[in-house]
């Protein structure tokens, strides 16, 4: 935490984390997938700093300290993607490059604010898990998230739609055609067995899964 790590070190740790998510990380794979040139010297430095260990067969494992750093980078990266896609409305592909920039510069406080703003999302737009932060673990109650998924509203509560968190284009289009688009105010009128919302004078029913895709601003802005 306290120690400054260089960007190239961060890139290596990020690559190892991602590869471990997919299975296991080896020197070969890290060299291929990291966004920086990975030299033996660089790996050696990481090893000597106690961030990771390389065994004889070339398999790399993150050590606790390295894991901690990597987790934060991944978290920043994936939260940034969410922010860029959902709130700023860019395509997933476009968000990638910008997120790569953000991951190195966001301060921890700002990261947590973004996370809270977005309602502690659990997956990035690519459907990969976003590591939990301090704010997710303890503060989801203490701080009120600014955006929550619409199934967390109380029955009878109205809120303005902030953004959708789904990759499925068809679902987005279906919803927007029924008048459910960001900026519109909806009212949750039933939660079970299916969610029913009222949008203008139309009642629309959908399954809970869809409700979790619709994020609304906690306090109506009207």
């Amino acid at each position, binding site marked *: 935490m306290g120690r400054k790590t260089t960007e190239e070190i961060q890139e290596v740790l990020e690559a190892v984390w991602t590869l471990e998510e997919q299975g296991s990380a080896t020197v070969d794979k890290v060299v291929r997938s990291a966004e920086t040139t990975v030299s033996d010297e660089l790996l050696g430095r990481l090893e000597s700093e106690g961030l990771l260990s390389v065994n004889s067969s070339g398999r790399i494992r993150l050590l606790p300290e390295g894991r901690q750093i990597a987790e934060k980078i991944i978290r920043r990266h994936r939260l940034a993607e969410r922010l860029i896609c959902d709130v700023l*409305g*860019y*395509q997933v*592909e*476009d968000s990638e490059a910008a997120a790569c920039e953000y991951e190195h510069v966001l301060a921890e406080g700002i990261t947590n604010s973004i996370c809270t703003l977005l309602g502690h999302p659990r997956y990035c737009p690519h459907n990969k898990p976003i590591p939990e932060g301090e704010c997710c673990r303890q503060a989801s109650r203490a701080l009120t998230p600014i955006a929550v998924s619409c199934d967390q509203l109380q029955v009878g509560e109205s809120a303005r739609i902030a953004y959708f968190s789904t990759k499925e*284009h*068809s*679902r987005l*289009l*279906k*919803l*927007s*055609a*029924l*008048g459910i*688009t*960001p*900026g*519109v105010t909806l009212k949750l*009128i*039933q939660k*079970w*067995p*299916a969610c*029913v919302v009222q949008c*203008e*004078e*139309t*009642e*629309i*029913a*959908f*399954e809970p*899964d*869809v409700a979790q895709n619709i994020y609304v601003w906690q306090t109506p802005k009207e």
Partner: protein
Amino acid sequence: MAMNPSPKSSRKVVLVGNPNVGKSIIFRILTGSYVMVSNFPGTTVEVSRGRMQLGGNIYEVVDTPGINSLVPQSEDERVTCEILLREKPDVIVQVADAKNLRRTLLITSQLVEFGIPMVLALNMIDEAEDRGIDVDSRGLSELFSIPAIKTIAIYSKGRKQLLNAIQNAHPPCNPIQALYSRESIVKALDNPAPPALLCIEWLAGKNDDLIHTLEGCMGAAAFTRLKEWREHYWSAGHNYPAREVSGLRNRFLDRSVARYKKKKKSRSLKESGNVKKVWFGLLLAGLLFFAWNEFGGLLRIPTPYDLAMRQAGKSLNAFAAQANPGGDLFRDIVLGLNKDGNFEFGLLPEAVHLLFFIVPVIVPLAVLLSRSRSFAREMGELSRRPSTGIPILLGVLLLLYEFVGYTGAQTLVGLLENAFFEQHFIPWLRALIPEGFLWNLLVGEYGLISMGITYAVGIVLPVVGAFFIAFGLLEDSGYLPRLSILSDRLMRVMGLNGKAILPMVLGFGCVTMATMSTRILSSKRERLITTLLLSLGIPCSAQLGVIMGIAAGFTVKATLVIIGVVASQLLLVGYLSSLLIRGQPSEFIFEIPPIRMPQMKNVVLKTMYRIKWYLKEAVPLFLAGTLVLFFMDSVRIHGQSLLVSFQKGLEPVLSGLLHLPTEAAGIFLLGFLRRDYGAAGLYELSRDGMLTGQQVVVSLIVITLFVPCIATFLMIIKEQGWKKALAIAGFIVPFAVSVGTVVGWILRTFDIQFN
């Protein structure tokens, strides 16, 4: 009514609008021809065309499927876009639900881009006013420079103004175009015929069909530019212009809604609270009365209905003994006294039945629904919440049973099949036709008339007719989509979603028709599972009537066992098939229409339309089925008819596995012709005392699960192809027999008696 693509002399009017806003009713007002109308989104699946005459011109009127946006996401929306692009109408009439202004204006803002003369019909203005919404039609009219007319289509209100506006329609203006700053595409298209901003949105999605149509509509040069432009943005990997356009639209809509939709004091505040209270009290009393008559027998409490029937029977018997004014026919049909002097199944007993069961509930309900909007809204709310919705559902099912199962399946069937066909018409024909092949073919045991027509017209038609009326009422009231909400979780177990409840409910009327209506489901997988379940375990109303008749002779326990076994098998098979048949359940996003008082005229029209369909589609299938049986009966091998050999072949299964008497063989064979037919055979067997209680339960379970009737089977072939149809039958037959075997074994082993 339907006609070929327009002769050039006529002008063309296209009706466009959201689903369930009344396009089809406006179509009927304009052309006078009928389109199936329902209070149910997505009823118009095909494009209807009609004609009207106006100010010396002939107009061709085209009714399009409901759309939510002209950036198509569904087949319906694509069809509508293509009609607008290809057919180049002279006038577009946008039919709108006045209370949903945002959704309306989204389509308006897209339609004006076509530059075609346009009229906006703000329909259902009464419902908007009831909710305290005042739409500034003059303001909208100025905004788009088109006539905006307030209408109430079901009462033909605003018709004159609408016709006038169609005659004088002129091209609209496009308020968004001016807001759009990125000029490149608009310029690149050189003032194209097709709508520029829509082009941008179409290009962003994968609308290849539509883009192909575009190519035909615009010049080659403009199309090439369009394609280059698209490549440019796609290679850059983004859709910024499309996002910009939809953002622009959203902001425009927000602003317009804020400006033109005004709140005012709701008219329903003026609604008399006392009238509502009085009728609500009557409704509660009616429900209590209904429950008393319905369940009194179970609790061994004398019911008003039984008393009335006994009293009426006594006095009518005395009356008939003295006077006998109209002979046998009068006694049978009007008085409803059968040979033993029992008072049942005639016009008079039916009147008593209606008076004690249907009228006390339906009349207050109808008055409340048509007089009190707030009651309609409350009903809508109550019927979608499980705690109140499930009791309401049970009430609806009981009423449905009283009307379809009793009035339809017992009274009308008794009158038509028993009194008319069996007692009078068939004997008369049998005497008329000389004996011989023709006699056998037409009026013999398996005759086309004595069996085919008698069953199709005498038994199934009244039942299905009554069901169509009840279903039409339910459909137009807007109740059915609320069932989807209630059943979504349960349906999910079977790999389906709430939408699939509609074909299932329809199946209780006629499984053949329900099989056809599986088309409303969005994925092939859902259609297949629903079809399988329909033919496995949903008894149609004709069969249900007979099953109820048999079960009534036994105990409540027997009925519960039958329902329990069939329902659990449905769930089990549904669950297993959801695992076996690959694919994800499609998502459930569904618009719930408001509860409305059904329009009688519309229900009648719709029922006639469906009965016509039944006569045209299903009756030939009955005749075909009868013919098959007739030949199986006539063809003799080794001195034995094919039918008999077939029955003999079934015997080991029946006596060995199911422990049923061999006479049941013929019944199971008949069960394929009509499931209720088989059940009716069982009814006779059990009445003759040839079956024990256990045997009745086992055979009813088997015949319910057993293959659907031949008409359904042919419909499955039509919808799913013969391979899947055979697979379904090949699964169901052994499955039904195995379930029957297991249930029979359990009943015998644990000595569970039903007598």
